[in-house]
């Protein structure tokens, strides 16, 4: 059967293979942006994604380098006509994720 979410599948497959993430959350926010002018005439339900990625691969890389790494892995999906229009990223190392958890727990 053809997947209903080919782009999401492709994101998951490519990032899992390349980054071996300990956390990979993929949110499809396309419905929130469907009314935007830039989306006129676009039929794809997979245009806006928000990703939360935790991976050792981000170790000793600044944020722009981490984002570039993800962008390069999803180059085809971003470049393709009718592909990903917007991609929000949160990139962390396992240590940073741990720190964030501790902070959030402390704040409660």
């Amino acid at each position, binding site marked *: 059967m053809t997947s209903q979410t080919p782009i999401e599948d492709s994101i998951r497959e490519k990032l899992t293979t390349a980054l071996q993430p300990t956390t990979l959350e993929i949110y499809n926010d396309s419905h929130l*942006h469907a009314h*935007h*002018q*830039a989306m006129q005439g676009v039929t794809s339900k997979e245009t806006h994604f928000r990703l939360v990625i935790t991976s050792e691969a981000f170790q000793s890389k600044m*944020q*722009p380098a981490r*984002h*570039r790494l993800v*962008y390069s892995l999803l*180059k085809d999906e*971003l*470049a393709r*006509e009718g592909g990903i229009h*917007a*991609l*929000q*990223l*949160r990139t962390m190392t396992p240590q940073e994720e741990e720190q964030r958890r501790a902070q959030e727990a402390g704040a409660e």
Partner: protein
Amino acid sequence: MFSRTILSRQLRQPATTLLLRSTTTTAPASSSGSFLLSLAAQRRLLSDATRKAIDKAVSSAPVVLFMKGTPETPQCGFSRASIQVLGLQGVDPNKFAAFNVLEDDELRQGIKEYSDWPTIPQLYVDKEFIGGCDIIVSMHQSGELAKLLEEKKVLATESEAETEAQGGKKE
């Protein structure tokens, strides 16, 4: 704060337009469909003329934002969020320039290659690429952005009225 209100209003000046079209060679725009056009744009190497024009744009002010729409009327939520952050940080409008990529397809495609960054908005400080909206917002939240903008001396200084109240030293 009162001065912040004025600053953010000043920051909402019209975005600068870069005219690249006439100076560069592009794929024939006439008969090709938009699909072919965008393929051509992606494959084309950044021409010298485009690169020079973008160099000029990047160095036109200490803080430069490439965005969709203008600071006054952003055409995209991510561009809007980025402008809002710069306003909240108190960036000096005299040290800021915005370029609307929607007005110029050459710029829109060129800046992606120039920065090796596929999305817009894009922020430059002192000709250095800082990042897109997610990075701007996360640096804003962590305090890194305030630190950077202060180090680069691009924040609006205290108003003259306040300086006078503090003794009005003259140099």
